[in-house]
């Protein structure tokens, strides 16, 4: 039986084996830019340009699904822009009243605020007043936010459905309450607050979790198969398993249960070393885990991960985008990917993907190699 790309991904997320291992990587913004060479500012701000880019990348690289990492694009994004300066090919400066943004093909936009943003002091935060009930921004990276237009929160999903005919597995993305907390307080002060003022942190996390849960629940009404929870700072590189259990798990679990109640899949994306907390992540109730970075970025052994959690969660991973795709020679790149396919296809639910996003300078030949190898080595025998 031949599966459609969407059926293939859905089967894996349901812990079943389709005709072959599904392939679905997430691209870093820089990788999207490098492959598509769009107007960088338009690509970031214009929802339709972004959506068409996602579809184009799926087609070029024969992926079975599309991750929508940004949503809530405003059709009026230019209304607050004072000027867009074309600096050189692939570099644009977008000037707003309060900031200047440098958009380029190389990576995420860099934001230069006129007035430096000072992180909030936890002692001065009134969670009722200061933490939004409605989540209207995505904390993308340090100092970089994506505003969610409340009138157009999920337009991108409708547009994608329209242009792809629902043939591919489309996944939305939300950000963990833990990330919102660290962003609010600043990473350093946020981490210190976990031990200096744990109770206040929990009140803040609860408020964020409620708002993010609302957002996720509403997103479930779109034509999507799953939601990814981006939780990059919840690994061993930052916090202990005890802190994970106290400050991450309950809040992600609350969101996950709301998504699952709507009949959609949900998976957690945590970067770096997570080997010591795989079972805790499973206890979140999520349908799957993404990343599982191998060394040196992380410490997960894929076979061991399947043995420990593979009966109840699908795994999406875990090709090292830097050391296997970017820096390795052809022989090593191919052998690394084949080993992962071989290990993954023995598990119950497996989606071949890079662990973290595809790094910007990974060549198109290397990305194309993935579909070639998965078609050759990822076939499930009936």
């Amino acid at each position: 039986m031949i599966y459609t790309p969407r059926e293939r991904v859905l089967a894996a997320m349901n812990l079943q084996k389709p005709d072959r291992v599904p392939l679905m990587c997430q691209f870093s913004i820089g990788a999207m830019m490098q492959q598509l060479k769009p107007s960088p500012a338009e690509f970031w701000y214009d929802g339709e340009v972004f959506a068409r880019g996602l579809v184009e990348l799926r087609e070029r690289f024969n992926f079975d699904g599309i991750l929508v990492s940004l949503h809530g694009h405003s059709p009026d994004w230019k209304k607050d822009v004072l000027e867009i300066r074309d600096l050189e090919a692939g570099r644009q400066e977008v000037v707003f009243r309060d900031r200047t943004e440098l958009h380029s093909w190389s990576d995420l936009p860099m934001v230069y605020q006129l007035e430096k943003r000072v992180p909030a002091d936890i002692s001065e935060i009134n969670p009722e007043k200061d933490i939004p009930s409605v989540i209207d921004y995505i904390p993308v990276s340090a100092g970089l936010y994506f505003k969610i237009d409340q009138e157009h929160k999920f337009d991108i999903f409708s547009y994608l459905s329209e242009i792809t005919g629902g043939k591919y597995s489309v996944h939305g993305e939300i950000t963990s309450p833990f990330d919102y907390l660290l962003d609010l307080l600043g990473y350093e002060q946020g981490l210190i607050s976990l031990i200096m003022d744990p109770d206040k942190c929990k009140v803040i996390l609860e408020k964020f979790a409620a708002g993010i849960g609302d957002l996720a629940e509403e997103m479930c009404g779109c034509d999507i198969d799953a939601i990814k929870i981006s939780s990059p700072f919840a690994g061993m590189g930052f916090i202990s398993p005890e802190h994970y259990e106290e400050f991450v798990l309950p809040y992600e679990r609350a969101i996950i249960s709301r998504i699952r109640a709507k009949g959609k899949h949900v998976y957690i994306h945590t970067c770096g070393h997570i080997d010591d907390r795989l079972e805790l992540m499973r206890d979140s109730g999520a349908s799957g885990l993404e990343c599982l970075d191998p060394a040196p970025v992380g410490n997960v052994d894929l076979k061991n991960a399947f043995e420990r959690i593979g009966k109840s969660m699908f795994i999406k991973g875990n090709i090292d985008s830097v050391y296997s795709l970017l820096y390795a020679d052809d022989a090593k790149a191919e052998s690394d990917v084949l080993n992962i396919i071989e290990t993954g296809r023995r598990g119950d639910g497996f989606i071949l993907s890079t662990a973290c996003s595809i790094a910007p300078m990974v060549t198109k030949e290397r990305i194309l190699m993935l579909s070639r190898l998965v078609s050759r080595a990822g076939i499930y025998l009936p």
Partner: protein
Amino acid sequence: MEEFTDKISLTVQKGKVDINSPYPPDMKGQPGADELTREALDAGVPANDILNNALIPAMAIVGGLFREKKLFVPQVLMSARAMSRAMVHLKPYFTSGEIKERGTFVVGTVAGDLHDIGKNLASMMIEGSGWRVVDLGVDVKSEKFIDAAREYPGCIVGMSALLTTTMESMEKAVKEMKTLLPAQRIIVGGAPLNAEFAARIGADLYAQTPQAAVSYLNSL
């Protein structure tokens, strides 16, 4: 004397900054690194002894526990804060020359990367081991690293990157610096790096943990 240095060392290891700090709960109401260092200096303990017999060994213990994943970033940050508080009292002794700094460490997060937690953590541990730290901040372009290396002759340069995307900036910065200042020693660190990458771009050391950087610096 030893009693003082042992107590100061313990406050740093446990992250007890001052008497008002609620952390750690089992030391609530007890004096922290702040009060004990002041008290020790008032009692005639040489500043050099406080640095070498209390602060530096304490941060080495903390670094070791961090490497072994027995301590995590929040606890290490608290230890670093306790150490910094103690260092405030020792500053005048550095200025007067009674305590000699081991050298100067110039550090920054490479261009395009705004993450500073790894850099800050390493800086605090390096400062705690007796080095002067010149922090260039985040999103540091190659030229700024080079200017700083020229401004502080004999310094060691540290470059940090958290993102796979900014490893390329690091490569550029290391190569440009080595072209203009071939003898300049450079340490690199950050989650996506490894020793092979560090060697490939021409860095002198890949520091997997802050303690690895401290050990390297102190071996020079």
